[in-house]
């Protein structure tokens, strides 16, 4: 198990480099001159050229890329092409906002969706099931930024309970968290419902009942543990979507998180900042995927056995 985890952690290094490569390449191909943007209209051509050389923009793509990667592994995110200051400074200032939002959103989604999905499955084809299903299909279909706007209309404009934008104390996180969680809540609920329906029909549930296990225990002890695996998978896959969604949600609620920083930097053609943001997101996604995979092993002994085999053989 430890071996398997280590292998996965080491595997993140090439993935990160590849992510840097892709994003750097895209930014390199993007037309427009960041230095001209940074220095404004009055800058002389000589000054612009000088600054370009100082920032290393004139070097060929591969040299720029290699330098960036070498620096990155020394913990150096480079210097912003727009502000001229350390990228790490602004990036690390934005990370807490995004982390609080994504994790609280995920937490809210998980603690609500799993009971809802189980309930809908157990009470299949009853009003409870229909309500949950309709809610879930709306949740996966509604754009999160629109849900955010609707929440603002309801809770900030209509009832004036919560601040509508910006960060001002913990109450400011309530609406963004709900908005974040809503989509994941819906997709995990749907998965939990359908996997539960499938597992409830499995032979081993019948075996359990045949030996005298009550309906309740057959559902919550025997079935849930098997049915929760697909739900966790979906939650893990959706974590990336959640992080990406923060781009729009941070815009709606005017939160200075990583998503906002990235959009602003893209518009300003500030490559080091954009790449820094992307590396952060890609690392988070990889780590969450690893956590999810390890979680499987604790739930399902077959997967654990598989990891131990894989960890040992290669």
């Amino acid at each position, binding site marked *: 198990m430890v071996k398997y985890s280590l292998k996965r952690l080491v595997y993140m290094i090439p993935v990160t480099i590849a992510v840097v490569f892709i994003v750097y390449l895209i930014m390199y191909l993007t037309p427009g001159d960041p230095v001209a943007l940074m220095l404004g209209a009055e800058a002389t051509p000589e000054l612009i050229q000088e600054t370009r050389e100082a920032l290393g923009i004139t070097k060929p793509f591969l040299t720029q890329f290699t330098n960036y990667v070498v620096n990155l592994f020394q913990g150096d995110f480079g210097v912003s092409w727009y502000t001229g200051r350390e990228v790490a400074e602004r990036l690390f200032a934005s990370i807490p906002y995004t982390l609080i939002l994504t994790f609280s959103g995920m937490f809210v989604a998980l603690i609500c969706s799993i009971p809802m999905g189980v309930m809908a499955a157990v009470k299949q084809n009853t009003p409870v099931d229909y309500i949950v299903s309709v809610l879930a299909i709306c949740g996966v279909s509604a754009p999160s930024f629109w849900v955010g706007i609707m929440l603002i209309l309801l809770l900030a404009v209509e009832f004036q309970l919560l601040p509508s934008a910006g960060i001002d104390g913990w109450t400011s996180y309530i609406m963004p968290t709900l908005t974040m969680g809503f989509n994941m809540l819906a997709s995990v609920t749907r998965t939990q419902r359908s996997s539960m329906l499938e597992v409830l*029909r*499995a*032979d*081993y*549930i*019948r*075996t*359990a*009942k*045949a*030996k*005298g*296990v*009550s*309906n309740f225990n057959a559902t919550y002890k*025997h079935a849930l*543990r*098997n049915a929760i695996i697909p739900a966790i998978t979906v939650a893990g896959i959706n974590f990336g979507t959640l992080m990406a969604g923060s781009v729009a949600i941070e815009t709606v609620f005017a939160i200075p998180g990583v998503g906002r920083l990235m959009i602003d930097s893209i518009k300003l053609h500030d490559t080091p900042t954009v790449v820094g943001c992307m590396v952060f997101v890609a690392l988070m996604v990889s780590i969450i995927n690893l956590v999810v995979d390890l979680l499987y092993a604790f*739930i*399902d*002994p*077959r997967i654990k*056995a598989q990891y131990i085999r894989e960890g040992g053989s290669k």
Partner: protein
Amino acid sequence: MQEKDYMLKIEDLSVQYITEDEIVYAVNGINLNIEKGKTHGLVGETGAGKTTTALSILNLVPDPPGKIITGSISLDGEDIISVDDQGNSYPAMSERQMEHIRGNKVAMIFQDPMTALNPVFTVGDQIAEAIQLHEHVDKKKAMEKAREVLEIVGIPGSRADDYPHQFSGGMKQRVVISMALACNPGLLIADEPTTALDVTIQAQVLDLMKDLRKKYDMALLMITHDLGIIAEMCDEVSIMYAGRIVEHGNLEDIFDHTRHPYTQGLFNSLPNIQDRKSKLKPIRGLMPDPSNLPLGCSFCPRCDYATEKCKTEPPQKIWLSDTHYVECHLYDDGSTESKL
């Protein structure tokens, strides 16, 4: 005929699966009695209603869509289910009481051992769970007993901590058997316990079951489509076709005095080891769609002896001797000699 000591009595049981599209007539009024300590064989093709019958005994017919329409089932003198002609069911037992019966008085072994065990719990846990439920002992005692029952079916007790995926198919079936035996049930239902296994493993598992049945003096309902298993293990046999028992008798009645054309067809479908050159004579056609049964005798479309009467009138039960009955119009005239 004196009243015998029955472990299981099923009377006039009918079960249907009712969906939006159709009604599947799975079991259509069968009677089946098993004396204590005897082995009863239930033979039929896939889809004849054997498994539904077995699940009815445990009151585990999946509902919806399954529904017991008529009939009563009693186990060791206690009524489990009774439904009157109007379809009003009298749940003779609450779900709570039923839970107490399942796994305790009557246990079941399922067809496919590969899927019958919960993959996320150790086999020891799964056996111990049954013991804990019915014998009210603590977890540790239950685990100890679980190891003992594993030993009985020929698995080292130390393997109780392994998960199902670490066992082969035959070993899994042994685990399932040990789970069923854990609380010494009075009746064991075995639903094609060897169908999913290799031939050599089949023989081992059957031997094991035979020994254990004797050792614990259980009644056994053996569901199978393999007449060889029946000959080997059973005292009485019921031949099931499209939800009806078409012929019933003791081993000798069925094997040496075969009366129903379907039973004869089953025997003719068996390869003959003595005469290896002989050709098989399979029954022509397929079982009728259980949602659309023929008006008369269900076997009529495949029967070589069918008459006009067979198409329109369902045959009644005709007793040929104290132990042997058949449902076939061939014997309407009261004769007991074979007409085949």
